[in-house]
């Protein structure tokens, strides 16, 4: 916006003007000659009394008098006498910061004249009564008196003359107004009409013939109430009513602008809305979760899905440093406009550049709200949608572990000693000596991001990973996944005098670029490798030690990023191994002092820290030889070496306390031992994983927000602090308490915002309630009590039934902000249940049905038209939730993909809104493309064909019966005799012009008939 609405400045500043001085004659002549003509020609059109009269005054600046010039406009004085350099007028002429006149820069000569004139003291004879408007100050006290900003009132439903239909208190209000207007309300609608109305209103689908029959046959006075209860319990209720909220939330699944990037995790917000509505989540909670779910319940799937609301708006696909700041303020504006429109019925977008023209909303309120959202960025997060299930799986996993361990223990006592003794005496001596390198068998594995599993041969293998930022329940704990992976590998040994370790990193075709790293290019960057040695038996007399490693050899080494970087204690440097050779790699580290080893065995813990992801396939070996120097030499498993070491330390006998350990070492040599060991190992490897899902939502980030004069990012006026809309607080408060807490308490600003938003006595609660009950009313009656559901301000319409709105809002709040009872309250009223018929008298008195003397006929929304077509065709897939789908699906339309640049034609054609701004009310248009779709689209033809099969399941079905069923399916009623006759005549006539055998002809004629029904207004209108 280049210019914003104009405010004039306070007159009081004028007192200081210096027009008492007598200007010198030369100066005045100069003014007349050089200055005045330019002002007249280039400036007066926007900066003069005349301009003001023509409503063209810009910036509140008058340049047609000395006073106006000196006082200046919105930006302050236009000139400072004698100081041309700091005078705004001259800067503007020089196009320095501001560009005036906007049509083009004036000549250097003219600009020099102005500089000279200002330096002369700006002699100016134009004194006059410049009518400077007093600045429009927003009076908050007055503002709070606006009807929708007042506290909730307790309203008693009016009583009235008897004899008029009053079924619920709602009727008392309606009837009172009708009586005043001398309107005679209609009687009740037929049961057929009523059930069709209720079905479409609550679940957005037509009733089936069976459902209609059941309702008609039920004589109980509570029959309709039962229907309502049933529908409110249907999961399709959430699908229907979520769509209304998705309109006001400008929900879409892509970024718009350049490339319109798809947001695969955006649908969770839609599902959350459906679920919340189905569960009748209290509306204040519904609002709080959308504003601050991620803060109120960090890492909770539902909460994160809910706050997707804030960031559902468009965002450019290409940004640069040059554009990013402006884009950020546009994004904040999108959030505020949506919050304002959807929750408060306020046009907050108008306050970005200036105080509101009509409502008591201050620009600083806007930036206070913006500051509340300052730390809100958008992006995908990986979240476990069902952590309880993950936890249960973990518990089950742990429980499953115990019996296996017990079996192992039992085996080690009952069977192992004999088996080992036999093998020891006959086989051990035949085993070869350990080779230079002994491959170590892992005992335990853990990683920050990766899933590691071990394979025979001491292999540690990558098996998937989590994305950074994921929060999940893993190994009995909730944790946030970092971006740098870290492997922890535990190994045991009983051998002494270990001199060196060797790390093999192996290529494999399962890895990116064949590895050995897991990063996209097959590389890994090992920043640090640490090895800790601890006594295996936990003997407190022995001290754990960190081993000092010397890099000796690496098969792959970049001279700038050598192996030594992995052991230099500096986390900033790394040994980098790229995937060039696609061959196996290895590195050798020598211990500065050989590891003597602990008496009861040694536990070695290798900690490998990486940049990003780690190694895909690896194993550790050690050597007890004095100088292994290179990686040459044989590799054998450590098992035999361990057995010999244990025996050597225990007089050549297996001691009781090493039996369990011996199961591991002995397992390759004995089938029964292997079974027992394998069972434990397999179970360990079956560790359950959290099934993470990508949720597009709020993520941490963002930066401070500044108040922007005229909404321009280059015009910052100081940092904005979080706060609320002042007029929606009980009193003017510099420091705004959130739920009674002082602002200094470290409440998250968005939690504070959600507290204020939903607080009935200290915040925006009353307005929040009014706006929502109005939406509910609107979708039951076609129009709200306030006709402008997104604008409850001065520019919006006033309520037709203010007392009713107030009463409903109070009911809503006192009933715990629940929607379902409110639906029922409304639908049980006589005014809801009345017929649609139009009487001439009433029409004359109230042509727009403002006083609801008849039920307003209205067209179905786009989604419901498509859903109904599928339903009558008998092929609606009524499964719930999940990722969005493109057009070709029999699922309900609420699950269709909403991509901003590729909106589905069938939806937009029937007025589904652009998902770019909050839309509270759809416009129902009628265009020929709709008719073309009904006449020619394969989809509609298909549904007609399916309906034709449905109404005539067998050849023997009489046509009249088929016609009747079609009417019942499509219109929830039986045709009149005249209709039936005409339709049968049509079918016969079609039959006569269709070619083919009699059966084909009949079927085809019925298709034509069914399509006629689908094209009738009655199909897409409810009354």
């Amino acid at each position, binding site marked *: *916006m*280049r*210019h*914003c*609405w104009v405010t004039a400045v306070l007159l009081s500043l004028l007192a200081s003007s210096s027009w008492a001085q007598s200007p010198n004659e030369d100066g005045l002549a100069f003014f007349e000659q050089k200055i005045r003509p330019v002002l007249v020609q280039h400036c007066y059109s926007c900066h003069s009394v005349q301009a003001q009269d023509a409503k063209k005054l810009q910036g509140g600046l008058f340049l047609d008098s000395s006073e106006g010039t000196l006082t200046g406009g919105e930006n302050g004085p236009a000139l400072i006498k004698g100081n041309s350099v700091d005078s705004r007028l001259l800067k503007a002429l020089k196009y320095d910061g501001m560009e005036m006149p*906007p*049509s*083009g820069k004036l000549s250097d000569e003219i600009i020099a004249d102005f500089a000279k004139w200002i330096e002369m003291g700006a002699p100016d004879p134009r004194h006059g009564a410049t009518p400077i408007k007093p600045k429009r100050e927003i009076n908050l006290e007055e503002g709070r008196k606006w009807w929708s900003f007042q506290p909730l009132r307790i309203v008693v439903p009016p009583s009235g003359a008897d004899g008029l239909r009053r079924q619920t208190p709602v009727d008392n209000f309606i009837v009172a107004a009708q009586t005043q207007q001398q309107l005679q309300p209609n009687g009740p609608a037929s049961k057929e009409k009523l059930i069709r109305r209720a079905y479409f209103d609550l679940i957005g689908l037509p009733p089936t013939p069976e459902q209609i029959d059941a309702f008609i046959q039920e004589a109980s006075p509570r029959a309709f109430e039962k229907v309502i209860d049933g529908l409110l319990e249907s999961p399709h209720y959430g699908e229907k009513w979520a769509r209304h909220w998705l309109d006001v939330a400008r929900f879409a699944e892509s970024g718009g*602008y*350049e490339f*319109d990037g798809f947001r695969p995790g955006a649908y969770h917000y839609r599902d959350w809305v459906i679920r919340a509505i189905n569960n009748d989540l209290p509306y204040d909670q519904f609002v709080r979760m959308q504003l601050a779910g991620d803060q109120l319940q960090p890492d909770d799937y539902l909460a994160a899905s809910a706050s997707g609301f804030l960031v559902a708006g*468009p965002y450019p696909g*290409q940004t640069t440093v040059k*554009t990013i700041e402006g884009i950020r303020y546009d994004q904040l504006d999108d959030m505020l406009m949506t919050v304002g429109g959807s929750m408060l019925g306020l*046009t907050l*977008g108008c306050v970005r550049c200036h105080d509101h023209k009509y409502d008591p909303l201050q620009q600083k309120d806007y930036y206070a709200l913006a500051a509340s959202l300052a730390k809100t960025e958008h992006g995908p997060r990986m979240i476990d949608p069902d952590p309880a299930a993950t936890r249960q799986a973990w518990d089950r996993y742990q429980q499953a572990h115990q019996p296996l361990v017990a079996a192992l223990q039992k085996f080690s006592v009952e069977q192992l000693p004999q088996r080992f003794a036999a093998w020891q005496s006959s086989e051990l001596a035949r085993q070869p000596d350990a080779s230079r390198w002994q491959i170590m068998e892992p005992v335990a594995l853990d990683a920050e991001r990766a899933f590691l599993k071990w394979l025979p041969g001491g292999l540690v293998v990558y098996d998937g990973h989590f994305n950074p930022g994921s929060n999940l329940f893993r190994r009995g704990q909730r944790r946030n996944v970092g971006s740098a992976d870290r492997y922890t590998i535990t190994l045991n040994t009983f051998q002494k005098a270990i001199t060196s370790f060797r790390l093999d990193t192996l290529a494999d075709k399962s890895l990116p670029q064949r590895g050995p790293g897991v990063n996209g290019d097959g590389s890994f960057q090992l920043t640090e490798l640490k090895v800790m040695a601890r006594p295996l038996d936990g003997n407190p007399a022995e001290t754990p030690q960190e081993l000092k490693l010397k890099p000796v050899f690496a098969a792959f080494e970049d001279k700038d990023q050598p192996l030594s970087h992995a052991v230099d204690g500096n986390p900033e440097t790394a040994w980098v191994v790229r995937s060039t050779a696609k061959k196996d790699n290895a590195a050798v580290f020598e211990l500065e002092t050989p590891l003597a080893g602990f008496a009861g065995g040694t536990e070695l813990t290798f900690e490998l820290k990486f940049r990003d992801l780690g190694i895909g396939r690896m194993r550790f070996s050690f050597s007890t030889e004095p100088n292994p120097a290179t990686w040459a030499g044989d590799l054998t498993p450590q098992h035999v070496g361990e057995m010999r070491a244990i025996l050597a330390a225990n007089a050549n006998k297996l001691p009781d306390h090493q039996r369990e350990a011996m199961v591991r070492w002995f397992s390759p040599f004995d089938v029964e031992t292997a079974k027992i060991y394998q069972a434990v190992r397999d179970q360990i490897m079956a560790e359950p994983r959290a099934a993470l899902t990508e949720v597009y939502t709020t993520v941490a980030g963002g930066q401070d927000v500044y108040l922007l004069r005229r909404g321009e990012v280059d015009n910052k006026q100081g940092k904005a602090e979080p706060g609320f809309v002042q007029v929606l607080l009980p009193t003017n408060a510099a420091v705004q308490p959130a739920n009674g807490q002082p602002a200094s308490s470290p409440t998250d600003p968005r939690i504070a915002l959600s507290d204020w938003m939903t607080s009935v006595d200290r915040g925006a609660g009353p307005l929040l309630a009014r706006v929502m009950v109005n939406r509910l009313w609107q979708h039951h009656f076609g129009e709200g009590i306030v*006709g*402008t559901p*997104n604008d409850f*301000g001065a*520019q919006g319409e006033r309520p037709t039934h203010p007392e009713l709105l107030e009463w409903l809002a109070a009911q809503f709040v006192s009933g715990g902000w629940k929607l379902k009872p409110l639906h029922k309250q409304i639908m049980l009223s006589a005014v809801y249940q009345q017929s649609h018929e*139009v009487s001439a008298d009433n*029409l004359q008195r109230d*042509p*727009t*049905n403002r006083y609801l003397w008849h039920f307003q*006929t209205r067209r179905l929304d786009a989604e419901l038209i498509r859903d109904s077509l599928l339903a009558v065709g008998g092929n609606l897939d009524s499964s719930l939730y999940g990722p969005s789908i493109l057009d070709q699906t029999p699922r309900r339309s609420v699950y269709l993909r909403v991509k901003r*640049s*590729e909106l589905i*034609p069938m939806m937009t*054609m029937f007025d589904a*809104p*652009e998902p*770019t701004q909050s839309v*509270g009310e759809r*416009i129902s*248009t*009628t*265009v*020929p*493309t*709709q*008719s073309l*779709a009904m*006449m020619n*689209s*394969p989809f509609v*033809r298909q549904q007609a064909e399916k309906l034709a099969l449905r109404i005539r399941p067998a050849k023997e079905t009489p046509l009249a019966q088929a016609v009747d069923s079609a009417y019942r399916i499509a219109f929830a009623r039986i045709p009149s005799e005249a*209709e039936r006759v*005409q339709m049968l005549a*049509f079918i016969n*006539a079609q039959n006569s*012009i*269709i070619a083919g055998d009699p059966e084909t002809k009949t079927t*085809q004629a019925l298709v*034509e008939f069914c399509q*006629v029904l689908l*094209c*009738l207004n*009655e199909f897409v209108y409810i009354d």
Partner: protein
Amino acid sequence: MAHENSMNGIALPARRQFLQRAGLGFGSLALASMLHQESNAAPSVGGDPLALRSPHFPAKVKSIIWLFMTGGPSQVDTWDYKPELQKRDGQDLAGSDPKTGFFTTSGKCLKSPFEWKQHGESGSWVSGIFPHLSQHTDKMCFLHSMHLKQNNHAPASIELMCGTNRPGLPALGAWMTYGLGSMNEDLPSYVVLHDTRPRGDDQIWSAGFLPKTYQALSLDARRKEAVDNLLRDSKHSDAQQRAQLDLIRQFNNEHAASRPSQVDLAARINSYELAYRMQMAAPDALDLSKESEATHKMYGLDNPDCGTFARQCLLSRRLVERGVRFVQIFAGKGVNGDGSVNDVPWDCHSDLETNHRSCGLYTDQPAAALLADLDARGLLESTLVIWGGEFGRTSDSQGSKGRDHNPNGFTIWMAGAGVKGGFHYGATDEFGYKAVTNKVHVNDLHATLLHLLGLEHTKLTYRFNGRDYRLTDVAGNVISDILV
């Protein structure tokens, strides 16, 4: 049904007239007389929103054809000749501002690689890439001082068509139809022609918050069936469909008769007839085989270098002849390696010369033919042709021979009804880098176009979410100097 729909100062849709046209029964007559009494109320969306409306003052332009040069052509290589730039090739560009482009530019002048000549009585300079269009300079009114804020394609295209860069606002064509109604009953009033969809996609031709009635029909040159659902199912004969429609009309009339306050029912009855007619009229309008061999040749339909654009230009003439108000063609054709991508063909980041020669070749002959053809048929007296893209290019180089985006100064021209021919308005600096004289912002351009259509831009408003929106946001001045 009252609505947040206001058209300050514009004649309300003549609902009575509409009802008569719809040929309705008795119920509507009662309603008609009733509506007459409340004719000062806000127009109902149930009425015919496409009914022809009187402009605020007599219009000079009935239709606009906008040849949208997608990707942003370079002003200094097309219509804005700068001898100083030619002279100082490789030297520092005075006043170069690193914030201008989208990427990074060198700050060194890059001269235009094309040969420049003066043309016509006006002596207008034109670069050598337009041998055909240069013969029409005396019809053209050049705006050399265009500027806008956004420096990337989608936001700039949205700003150029919708007035500000935020998506979700209605585009010029939607505002036009909203303000004036439709001049024809068989075709949409706002048609977009494209092959690869331009970057920013249908956000550029959005109806935004306006009723969908004002939405553009976009015709994709790559698709066989131009309009969805225009063709009857092959198993479905005309006789069958006609019989269906007759029955539908009868039953719908009966349905509407008992719901006299429901104006949209009548509109919907009528819309089946309109659809039936459109089914006939649209294929006819789109059928270029009805044009002569000579016309095909003049536009270059069979020329592989420009055939697609030629078809689109010829089609736009046929649409305008049939009363379509606004036709917009997104055009240009880059080649591999010139830095452009299909959805932004004029986007000459890496090889200006190759790119602009290719895009010139693609657009020159058909555009020139369109001007000549419209002129010959007298249509240029009521039609305005606009040539221009979403921004210009930097006068300094990007890489060694490319140019970056430049929203601070670029040229568009208009030719035809209401504007001076052979006229140059506004100017960039001596390097063609920045508009300095008589600057024209998008809002000014829109104000002027609406003025030509007979609409006062400050009065063409639509209330949405409590605000009276305008195409020109809160700015815009009519450029009266260019008007005839």
